[in-house]
């Protein structure tokens, strides 16, 4: 048995106040780990959403766990805007670092490659660029009169996500979510909650191997059935639309959000299953 298999509680304790935490967008979202972090009372997180975020960042922001959000957009998709995110931005309670999707990817890919920076086309003339003091415009070294944006590497302390299957050797099957490799490579630590842990080496299955995140990049695995609930996990379960809708309504104002949060704290599907 690989030493990286831990309980959900042990995993949550590895994430510290002030950590830069990187979150993949929808599906693969570690909702139960997020609820555990809220219960733990974590503070001052710097969230990086890849490239956008939905219910988890909104929930963490509402619960007061977040100091900074680096994102290309936070929304509940078809369920509307992200209310807690919106009110936190409006009040200035959180610092917002607005980006554009490929800039988030490119910053993480720079970290993955050990590059201090990476160029990106676009952005020039936007207020996104104007408000990012950490983005620079340089001259293309290979062409005159061709300004181009350069972005600093994004190197998170911790990457967290939820996946279907891990093995006892510490490998994680990420299926079609190939971008989870990027965030794990870029982050110092990677913590993964999974639906099931199998006892054969998934890297030794030729058809699974191309979609495996190797144990070298995995610092913790916790068995958490329904760990993405109420969001979806392809091949396992679909969205629980009524629960997301209930959240979207509750999050509209602070007092109903608090009530919702207390319900979550007293019970959650991820724990009860």
């Amino acid at each position, binding site marked *: 048995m690989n030493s990286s298999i831990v309980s959900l509680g042990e995993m949550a304790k590895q994430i510290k106040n002030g950590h830069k935490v990187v979150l993949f967008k929808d599906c693969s979202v570690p909702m139960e780990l997020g609820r555990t972090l809220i219960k733990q009372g974590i503070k001052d997180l710097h969230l990086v959403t890849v*490239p956008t975020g939905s219910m988890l960042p909104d929930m963490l922001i509402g619960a007061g766990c977040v100091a900074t959000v680096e994102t290309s957009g936070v*929304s509940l998709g078809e369920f509307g805007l992200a209310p807690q995110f919106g009110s936190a931005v409006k009040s200035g309670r959180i610092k917002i670092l607005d980006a554009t999707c490929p800039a988030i*990817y490119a910053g993480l890919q720079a970290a993955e490659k050990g590059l201090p920076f990476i160029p990106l*086309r*676009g952005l020039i003339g*936007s207020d996104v660029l104007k408000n990012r003091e950490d983005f620079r415009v340089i001259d293309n070294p290979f062409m005159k009169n061709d300004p181009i944006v350069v972005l600093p590497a994004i190197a998170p302390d911790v990457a967290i996500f939820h996946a279907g299957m891990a093995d006892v050797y510490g490998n994680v099957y990420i299926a079609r979510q190939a971008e989870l490799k990027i965030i794990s490579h870029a982050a110092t630590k990677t913590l993964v909650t999974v639906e099931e842990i199998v006892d054969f080496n998934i890297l030794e299955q030729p058809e699974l191997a191309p979609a495996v995140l190797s144990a070298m990049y995995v610092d913790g695995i916790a068995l958490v059935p329904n760990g993405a609930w109420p969001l979806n996990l392809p091949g396992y379960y679909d969205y629980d639309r009524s629960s997301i809708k209930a959240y979207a309504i509750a999050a509209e104002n602070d007092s109903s959000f608090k009530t919702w949060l207390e319900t979550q704290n007293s019970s959650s599907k991820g724990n009860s299953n």
Partner: protein
Amino acid sequence: MNHSIEELLIATIAEFLYGLKHIAVGVLSPIPGSAALLAKTRSEEVKKVSIIGSTQEPYRLDGGVDLFDCAGQGRVDAFFLSGGQIDGQANVNLTGIGDYPKQETRWSGAFGSAYLYFLVPRVILFREEHSRRVFVPKVDFISAPGVSAPNIYRPGGPYALVTPLCQFLFDRNKKKFFLKSIHHGHSLEEVHDNTGFDFEVPETVPVTATPTKKILTLIREKVAPVIADPYPDFANKCWPNH
């Protein structure tokens, strides 16, 4: 043959897409997605439609990096953008209203707009609300600019704007929208009343072509079942009997 406003918009947008090799569709875009599928059904030259959020081959993408790299390679020919605000220079605001960063109203954020608007040759702007609240003289926040200085690398940019009232083309040299046609049942006066920016008007304003029976049949029989994968609610609403 009777048609819904959604079907008119789908057919109208599709007119900009015939013959393009690869059309990509972002999140929350059922009408542009349907238009792209219609174009693929009718045009052999449309080799690929990528729909973010689709789980069906051949419409799915490997992920965001795949889309943005593909656009960087010049392999995405058309894409769609919307905006909480859009102004007469085709600047798009997806970020919020009021002084940044503590905006009165915060929307989601720029998403891929600040990149794709530069890279994709034909960006079609689309909004289901045609009002002075949306079409403003100047956006509060430029998530992505409509035009750039000549030395800025920009193979892409705004191509057209489609609304429930009318369709505009964007003239990149004049940096202005040009009214292409008004949908049946609406007037130039109505368009002016509901548009906060200046635009050019031809001497005679055509009426937008009504979708033919053939096109409506294709939409209902070929497009509806596919768009129902990423957008089940939309498909149920538009084509309850299909």
